[in-house]
């Protein structure tokens, strides 16, 4: 036992020493490269050539509560990185790190990327994490591109914070307006999970939009993001005989909720937020998903050339349909490439300027621009599930 104890002790000590050495080395090397010297290239656009590798950090939630989004984002980023590597001229050194859906890890990672001297940080997955970690990049003068942050106020953190994800406030009013026009909504029941930042801010957007459209909300019901049985709530909703159910929930709640609603004979349209915009809805809820209306930043059925190519490449690479998180991640890295090539420089300062100037760039999300608040501007889409696929509601 004595021997074992000392072995463990020695191993632990060794591990600590090892860690401090190697991270020390890594930091030292990275810090030196941060100088913009070899990150400035020659030529513009297609012909731009930059000698050094452009270091890009990505902070995604690959494990923990938000792992399902992070995984999609990782696929989108890796696909984009692979395609950019083929294109040549500018090489990207993309490092994807996992924040474990833990604010402490997110902050540590941002800190580490800033210390390592990356040119830009992509992420983090969740809006709450962005509020916590984006200020670190802002203070250090490293641009951040959010690819899934939809909460209000993220870009107010500072002039180095950008995002290519439309806010709920941008998408949801369009969804409600379109649905009201289409279905003649007069009175609806709103349901949302109140223990998740994303769905709660979605609810707030829904409530504001419904009020603006003059639709009466006969009841507002809340549930938890971990709930799977919604029958009691749905029965309660059924009692007020609504024209539609408006739901702000994550995909994990959306699938059982939609299935159970149809089982209970609720056949009015179900209007969902961004969380519903996931091919798993049709895959897992099947028939029940028919007639679900989803407002989305990404039109999966769009036939613009970028999107068609993306759908095919993604399917070929991963054998599955991409969701909006993958599309936004893919578009994110492509936009970074666009920004790098526009000035043919990849140091943080030039990237920040170039990102702010992005205008009418064709992407999988459609014609894309960054507005003066560093928020995304591109067409949103209102989709309805028809025959097992999202189609544009018209």
């Amino acid at each position, binding site marked *: 036992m004595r021997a*074992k*104890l000392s072995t*463990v*002790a020695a191993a*632990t000590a060794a*591990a*600590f020493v*090892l*860690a401090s050495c*190697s*991270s020390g080395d*890594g*930091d030292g090397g990275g810090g030196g490269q941060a100088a913009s010297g070899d990150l400035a290239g020659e030529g513009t656009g297609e012909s731009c050539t930059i000698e050094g590798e452009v270091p890009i950090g990505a902070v*995604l939630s*690959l*494990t923990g509560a938000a792992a399902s989004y992070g995984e999609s984002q990782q696929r989108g980023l890796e696909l984009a990185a692979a395609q950019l590597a083929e294109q040549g001229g500018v090489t990207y050194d993309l490092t*994807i*790190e*996992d924040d*474990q859906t833990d*604010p*402490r*890890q997110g*902050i*540590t990672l941002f*800190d*580490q990327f800033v*210390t390592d001297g990356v040119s830009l940080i992509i992420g983090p997955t969740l*809006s*709450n994490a962005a*509020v*916590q970690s984006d*200020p670190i990049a802002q203070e250090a003068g490293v641009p951040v591109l959010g690819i899934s942050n939809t*909460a209000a106020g993220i870009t107010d953190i500072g002039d180095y914070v950008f995002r290519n994800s439309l806010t709920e406030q941008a998408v949801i009013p369009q969804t409600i307006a379109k649905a009201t026009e289409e279905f003649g909504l007069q009175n609806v029941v709103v349901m949302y999970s*109140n*223990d*998740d*930042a994303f*769905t*709660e*801010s979605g609810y707030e957007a829904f409530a504001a939009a419904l009020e603006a459209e003059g639709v009466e909300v006969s009841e507002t019901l809340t549930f938890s993001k971990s709930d799977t049985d919604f029958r009691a709530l749905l029965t309660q909703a059924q009692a007020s005989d609504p024209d539609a159910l408006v739901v702000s929930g994550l995909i994990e709640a959306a699938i059982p909720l939609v299935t159970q609603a149809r089982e209970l004979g609720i056949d009015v349209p179900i209007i969902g937020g961004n969380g519903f915009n996931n091919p798993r809805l049709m895959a897992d809820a099947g028939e029940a998903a028919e007639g679900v209306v989803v407002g989305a930043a990404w039109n999966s059925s769009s036939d613009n050339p970028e999107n068609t190519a993306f759908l095919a490449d993604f399917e070929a690479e991963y054998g599955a349909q991409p969701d909006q998180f993958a599309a936004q991640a893919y578009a994110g890295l492509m936009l970074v490439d666009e920004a790098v090539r526009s000035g043919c420089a990849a140091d943080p300062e030039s990237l920040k300027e170039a990102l702010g100037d992005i205008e009418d760039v064709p992407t999988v999300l459609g014609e894309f621009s960054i507005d003066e608040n560093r928020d995304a501007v591109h067409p949103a889409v209102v989709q309805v599930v028809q025959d097992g696929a999202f189609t544009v509601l018209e």
Partner: protein
Amino acid sequence: MLLQYATPLTFIALGAIFAYSFYAVLIAGQLSLGQAGFAALGAFSGASLAPSGDDVGEVPALLIAIAIGMAVGALAAVVLGLPTMHLRGVFLAIATLGFAEAVRIVLLNQSWTGGAQGLAVPRVLTVGMAWTALAVVAYWFWRMARSRYGRALEAIREDELAARAMGIDVGRHRLTAFVTAGAVAGLYGVLFAYYVRLIAPGDFDFVAAVEGLVTAVVGGSTMFLGPLLGSGFQTMIPEIQRAVGIEAGWIRPFLASFLLLVVILFLPGGLASLLPRRRIRMPASPGRPAVGDPGTRPTDRRHPDPGETVAALTGLGKEYGGVHAVRDVDLELRSGEVVGLIGPNGAGKTTLVNMISGLVPPSSGSATVLGTTVGRTPVHKMAAAGVSRTFQHSKLFNRLSALDNVLVGAHLVSRPTFLRRLLWLPSARRDEQAALERAAGCLERVGLAELAGTRASALSYGDQRRLEIARALASDPSLLILDEPAAGMNHVEASGLSTLITSLAEDGLTILFIEHNVGMVLQTCTRVVVLNFGQVIASGSPQEIAADPVVIEAYLGTSDDEADPGSIAEGTAADPTAGSAGGTSAGAATNVHPSAAGTLPPPDTTPRNAT
């Protein structure tokens, strides 16, 4: 150089502070998960009630928030602690977990907290501030460890009933520990908020609570550096994995959990068990006066004069669901007497002394012991009145050293030292030294001086019995109750014990002892009381008892007629205090160490020596 590690270092400090809030109660043997709730309440109230940094400056704002957060955390601990402090083990864990969940749900549904989207807080905390706060917290627990208060908590962890019998107010100590946990958790909550910029109720959920607990346990919950080591370990694992270059994904959490398993398997005492521990030594003073000399007796304690009544029992009875363990016992103990209580198995001897020492309330009759009425007085108050005892089955503080055991015994006669130790007042040192001298004297008196540093559980059975006597002596009692002190001793040890008891009586101590070694009883006692079927059948001088035909028939037997096998069997089954005390005696049963019931040796198996 240090600056580039500022973030992980800050999180190590924060994690350690949170782990200290678990350590604060683990050290008293309480398993609580409510700290996440205290931290959440502290964080949200501190962050929203403190004035803005623009008005008073950032650091004052943080300090005000800390004060608010710690006060709120402590207050919440009082509110939760009062109704739950009688819960033990997993029941306390579940109750406190319920509280933490309730807090999370309430905060989620309040508008001032921002709900799930959280509350934005400016970042004020720096790595230096975090480590300063950690140093203060660690200092607190460091100074606590060797104080009277710290020892009392450890004693409660090791054996609650014995701690009570040593005069420790267990309820108050447990609540104090819980409130400390609440305040430290509140501190963590505020510091966390002022570092991460945005707090949401989800940051203080079940997972966070479990992580805090794991950090404290991995680090070691019996040594004050444990939480710090645990937090360093937990925080560095992801860093190491990143540095080594393990690709992000499921492998990392898997490895982290695996390492945790390895540590727990091979270091059950936590990482802190790798550190060398400084044991307190016996004070070396050859000319130390023997315990019992007037000079060493704490002066503020009044002992009854010789011949004065120490205990008066009138019609005392105890009934367990129809079984009369003790009935109608009239007995008077006078100061300076050595009274032997003998009788066959199940005669009610232990029940009787349990009543006298306040462990079991009588069902009928009345008793006054050292001016205190038995029945309504809690055990620790009886101890304070001057009753000290040993137990039929040793109830030592197993993981503490022999010397520490006796130091706990001196709880009642030493002064509280914790707060003075925090300030390094020399008087605290003097008081600790006095307690140490006293404890050492008690150990010497029972002949265990050379084993002072040995863990109680590592002592031989006979030594454990003697250690119990030393511990009971340390409180300078007026009435010493010994429950089968010679059980498991050979005749040399037993005669040594006999000499010890006689010498204690010479010092003016009143002694009541149960013993099966009748020869020893007759030789040592001034008076012998014989109990059978819960009733006193004889009482008198050893010579009278040895000659009493009733006693000979009922108990002593003759050489060819040892104790009646029938009555022993019956008696064993009916003995309510041995084996399974049952749920009927609330005071005693709930206090017994949970694992004790299954491991008790069969009661009263000592061979009886009738001559």
